[in-house]
């Protein structure tokens, strides 16, 4: 049932297109809190497969704008949901990719984002107050895309990230928390955007990241945990930023990702044989792009968006992916 030779692009495109249709199932309504994120994941995956036009631009922009929470000045994951920084970043990323940033009230969004910064320097996700270095990344990424990084208290933001650094070189979600590949990505990418990679212990961290690869080729997020396709992206993007991507066994990782494809209906799962979803589909395709998989479009690992979009905005940082293979 696995197809470990090639990426099934037409099937994945069809799968992403089908996501909005025919959703008479329980899982779908349970994930309304991720709807805007899901559209960003789908759109970015399509861009990387060079199929941006597969989803209608105007409809997408219309949906994004219907998620605007006018009271808070940010975006919710879904119409009528309260504004949250995760959804706000997704909305901005979609609008940037679609070249439609002019639809939003930038000063208000900036105000909303900055209002979430806590005295410690970390960001909360919303007014409910959960804090996480993930949200710091969302804030930094979003402000950078909006061209408003100058309004951020950079020292304070960096100080919190620094306090989440662990003895193994990795970073956790909050002070005292264990290193985790997803948190490593958000911290390293945020520091890259802020030109503060000097905060990272490059050798120790890159080694910790390389250690995430298991003999079957897949990557895990912490020692002694299972491999999962989404970690392919988090580990690889952090390694690209540290310019150490070549430490990964690229052939074995590629076959692991390709073996997690659904060869009948498209999409990529967390690992072979599991149910596919759009989240793992994006991160599988994104990882393959960084590994130089033939025919894919370049991905910017810092922003997790098409590289050409970031370059056009003059925001490219000095990451390094593997050279794109022709065959």
């Amino acid at each position, binding site marked *: 049932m696995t197809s470990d030779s090639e990426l099934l692009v037409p099937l994945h495109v069809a799968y992403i297109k089908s996501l909005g249709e025919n959703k008479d199932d329980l899982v779908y309504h349970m*994930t309304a809190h991720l709807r805007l994120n899901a559209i960003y994941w789908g759109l970015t995956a399509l861009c990387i497969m060079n199929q941006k036009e597969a989803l209608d631009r105007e409809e997408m922009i219309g949906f994004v704008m219907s998620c605007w929470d006018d009271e808070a000045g940010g975006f919710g994951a879904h119409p009528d949901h309260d504004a949250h920084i995760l959804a706000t970043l997704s909305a901005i990323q979609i609008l940037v990719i679609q070249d439609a940033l002019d639809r939003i009230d930038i000063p208000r969004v900036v105000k909303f984002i900055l209002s979430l910064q806590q005295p410690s320097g970390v960001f909360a996700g919303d007014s409910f107050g959960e804090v996480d270095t993930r949200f710091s990344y969302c804030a930094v990424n979003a402000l950078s895309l909006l061209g408003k990084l100058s309004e951020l208290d950079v020292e304070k933001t960096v100080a919190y990230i620094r306090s989440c650094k662990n003895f193994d070189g990795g970073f956790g979600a909050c002070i005292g*928390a*264990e290193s985790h590949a997803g948190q490593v990505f958000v911290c390293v990418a945020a520091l890259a955007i802020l030109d503060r990679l000097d905060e990272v212990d490059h050798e120790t961290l890159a080694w910790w990241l390389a250690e995430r*690869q298991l003999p079957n080729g897949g990557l895990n997020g912490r020692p002694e945990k299972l491999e999962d396709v989404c970690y392919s992206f988090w580990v690889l993007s952090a390694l690209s930023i540290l310019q150490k991507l070549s430490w990964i066994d690229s052939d074995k990782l590629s076959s692991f990702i390709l073996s997690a494809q659904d060869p009948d209906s498209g999409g990529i799962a967390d690992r072979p044989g599991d149910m596919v979803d759009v989240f793992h589909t994006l991160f599988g395709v994104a990882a393959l792009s960084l590994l130089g998989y033939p025919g894919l479009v370049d991905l910017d690992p810092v922003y997790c968006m098409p590289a050409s979009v970031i370059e056009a905005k003059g925001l490219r940082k000095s990451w390094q992916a593997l050279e794109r293979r022709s065959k």
Partner: protein
Amino acid sequence: MSASSDSIELYADDPEWADIEPVRQYENPNPLAPIFYTEEYRDATDYFRGVVKKGDMSPRVLDLTEKIIRLNPAHYSAWQYRYKVLLALKSPLDLELRLMDELAVKFLKTYQVWHHRRLLISHPQLSSSKSSSFYLTAELRFIAKCLVVDSKNYHTWSYRQWLLSNFFSGGERGKEEEEVWKKEMEWIEQMIEEDVRNNSVWHHRFFVVFQSGIRVGDEDREVVRRREIDFAKDKISLAPSNPSAWNYLRGVLDNNNLPYSDLSIFVRPYAQARSPDAEADEVIDLENPSPSKGAQLPCVPAIEFLADVYESGKSRDDIEKAAQLWKSLANEYDTIRKKYWEYRIKEALEVLPA
């Protein structure tokens, strides 16, 4: 969706809710995001939106939000509003915590469950009450119970670290703090006993010993370092290929600026194939426990460690010995990281004079 509502009770049919105007979910014409709900969930969330719109903060809203949370624990607006209502009603937050005990275990992977606990326990009603110690230590016990169900749950562990640093690190609780940290170390030993490969526990040990202040009895850091190094060695001898124990050992050395070469006598047997007559002339060295009987040798982290020891020697002979070990990793013992080991060889040889 069929309309078989016989078995479920809907707010729409309940006269007690007649004063609330249900607000339908915004139906989007966009095919990217159509919405289909179960009738029970749709009914509850329609009334929830109605409640929010009206600003209703009556006790029944606690039932409504509980129902929504049980159907969908990731519904963050329901959590948020529930907390507001609890405060508005001056509800006893200890009862809320007990209700949360059930939900936390049920929805262990949902961060809202843990964040809600954080808000509750931080509220002066609990954290500044006469019984605050009781509530806080009950939290530690409750977390330990959750970790029996899922011993590596990230939210659960970070909640524990947060509790310890927020409520037991200021010195305000005097003797009681000492007691908590002492128990914490005992509990960690027990957790490592249960699964020596659980990286979360090893991380937590580092946090407790080195990152959250100095405990009474731990003032002599030299004694602490020795204790921690011996602890790691002991656990490595039980499971030599366990990366968590090796990372811990490296962490202790790095954190205290100690040279890796201090450990070479200990490491050597782990970096070699077992010699056939090893059993016969084995001398028990308490400071340097040998690999356990069935362990597979050599093991990757030990080869790597020994190579680092050689590399720090800096002489040509040392570097060449290190390169030899890296070669064995690249070609035999850790081929998945071949590129990395080749990089180490290249970097080390480059600094040698020609």
